[in-house]
């Protein structure tokens, strides 16, 4: 059902954990849905110098969280905005159609964390235009 890449990231997830003094924290999903993704970032000079995650969810939710953190670590905020759910799924050599919502969740978790960072620091990013974490819904 899952690619080797998914199983690799599920069984050996990268960047699991919390960052105590995180500059950005974003949590998406809910327990009713069956997936919750929480992302922590350390940001210095617009660069995501560290990122960690915690996820409640199925194998693909854990794998997408893991690879998403890998894909944005060391990148600028602008670059992180360009992380699409498609790119996350492709990096995992694909996801079963019913699991595509997990990759959407990963994209949203990254965006929500940066939204939190922008709010805290009173920053403006055009990529966040119209984005409101409270409006997100289950993507099953």
């Amino acid at each position: 059902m899952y690619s080797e890449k998914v199983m690799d990231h599920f069984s050996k997830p990268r960047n699991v954990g919390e960052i105590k003094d995180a500059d950005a924290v974003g949590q998406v999903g809910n327990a009713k849905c069956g997936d919750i993704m929480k992302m922590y970032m350390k940001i210095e000079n617009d660069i995501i110098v560290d990122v960690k995650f915690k996820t409640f969810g199925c194998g693909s939710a854990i794998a997408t969280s893991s690879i998403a953190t890998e894909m944005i670590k060391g990148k600028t905020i602008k670059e992180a905005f360009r992380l699409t759910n498609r790119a996350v799924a492709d990096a995992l050599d694909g996801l079963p159609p019913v699991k595509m919502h997990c990759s959407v969740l990963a994209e949203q978790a990254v965006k929500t964390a940066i939204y939190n960072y922008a709010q805290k620091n009173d920053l403006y990013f055009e990529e966040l235009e119209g984005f409101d974490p409270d409006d997100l819904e289950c993507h099953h």
Partner: protein
Amino acid sequence: MKRVYLDYAATSPVKDEVLKEMLPYFSDVFGNPSSVYSYARESKKAIDKARDIVATTINAKAKEIYFTGSGSEADNWAIKGVASALKNKGKHIITSKIEHHAVLHTCEYLEREGFEVTYLDVDENGFIDLVDLENSIREDTILISIMYANNEIGTILPIKQIVEIAKRKSVLVHTDAVQVYGNILIDVIDLGVDLLSLSAHKIYGPKGVGALYIKRGTKINSLIYGGAQEMKKRAGTENIAGIIGFAKAAELAIENIEEHATKLKKLRDKLIEEITKTIPHIRLNGDPIKRLPGNVNICFKYIEGEALLLSLDLVGIAASSGSACTSGSLDPSHVLMAIGLTHEIAHGSLRLSIGDFNSEEDIDYVLEKLPEIVQRLRDMSPLYEEVIGGN
């Protein structure tokens, strides 16, 4: 790698004795039983004998046993067949919210066809309220279909009492006994049921064969039309090898039922006791006592079932879950919802179903691996973080 199969409620392997019995009926004895020559008579004789054996295992008459293609077909036939035969008498059916989909989806189909269905609620252990059942029976109620034991949570329902209530109002009773067969001795006379579904592959017989017990005199229409097979009630050339295998498996299961149930219960209780002792934040689903001998169903809070199954599979353990992610739907299992679990808790369910080929070592292996797997997933879970008071 060590492999441990703990999904016997899903299916079981065919026992050697059963396979041996079946093999000649693929090649040596192949005649179509409906024909007149000696080849046909051999097949016919074998099927008659198999029907006798299966009938004996549930204290029925051979003429009351109709072989089908599966337990699901037996469920479909019982409900659709009675509904269509009695539709002029009434169009109301009573069932429960925890039935197998073979029953629930059949009832939903009948609703679209103009029947009315009452889906009885169950309590936190999966029992229907018998007063509720009695009050639900109407003038136009034609059938009550309640499972003998639930496939997910293992709760055994009081079928005899259900039949007593139904009989007072002259309503037919069907029960899906697929999970019970071979685990608890079934006596259709004592139970008093009118229709009862069985399946071969849960009792170490082949897949693709089941049976419906139809009490003599019960009004039921056919599901499959065609030839005169199965006493003109179920057309289709018989799955001879399957039927022979079914009978052998049934015979073995009933012969060893006490020993089998005692062994399974011992392993089941060890699993439940040890998991309860070593892993916090869990919930045992289903009745602790009135429970199938091989069923363990536990929710592990703060983690999700599919991740748990994948992790177990990585160490060679095969199990199942009522998590939404394993069913491909938005909601977790309808059974776990019906017993009142929240989505959040139901997502973390694990069913381990024990069978004849499991040993104490298998159980010890699970008990060795499970705590660390649950802990690893909890350490990754933001829900658990809230509980243990992280930031």
